[in-house]
């Protein structure tokens, strides 16, 4: 599709979003211990590594800082 064609981070973002959604509904809002800790660290790292690289040198990088 127009939006995601050429988005190299789509898979990493989806993996993170799925993990977050599950954590949010099953742990966070139900306050199941340890709810004050989001447990999607690995997915987040992979997603952010891709996203930061993708922003490098773009106009948005400056806007976001």
């Amino acid at each position, binding site marked *: 599709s127009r939006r995601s064609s050429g988005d190299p981070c789509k898979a990493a973002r*989806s993996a993170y979003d799925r993990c977050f*959604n599950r954590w949010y509904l099953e742990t966070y809002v139900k306050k199941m211990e340890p709810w004050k800790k989001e447990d999607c660290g690995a997915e987040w790292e992979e997603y952010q590594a891709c996203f930061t690289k993708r922003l490098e040198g773009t106009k948005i990088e400056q806007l976001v800082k």
Partner: protein
Amino acid sequence: MVRGYKQEHVYKHPWDRVTAATWRKYQDLDNKPQLSHVLSVDTIARRVDGATGVLESTRLVSVNAPCPWWLQRIIGDRVCHCIERSSVDAAAQTMQIVTRNVTLKDFVEVEEKCWCSPHPQNPDWTLFRQEMNIRCSTLSALASLAEKIEQRCIEKFQQNSAKGRQVMEQLCAFLEKESSLGGS
């Protein structure tokens, strides 16, 4: 010059489900034709406060901004980037979201605020309030341009809010079915 616009909506779903749907609204955009104006949404920061348990998130929201050719020249392209900051308090059952444009921010500031909490009369329902405030810089040469943008923003906000609500209702219905099947 500042202009404001407010609206409210009641979702006949509990707060947990409505806030979960809020996160999912901007995910998997390829399958949401009603939100075709939203090009991409990326989470750029997120943390849970170890003491209060408040979930703070920052997201970059990029929107397709249909605009006259001369405005496109000023912006450089037709994409408008916004920063969305939110806090969710699981203990108090509140969610607040503030979104501001980054593109053209020295010229016009469009701020959208949302509040989401259990409905005061029915705890199984959720009250969703939205407010949009637009502030234009007073550069006189561009004042009438600013007014046109303001008007367009308000129109777009009304249209997009209706589409967003439709997506939210669908997501809540889906999550309700999932939970009754013992899925989560």
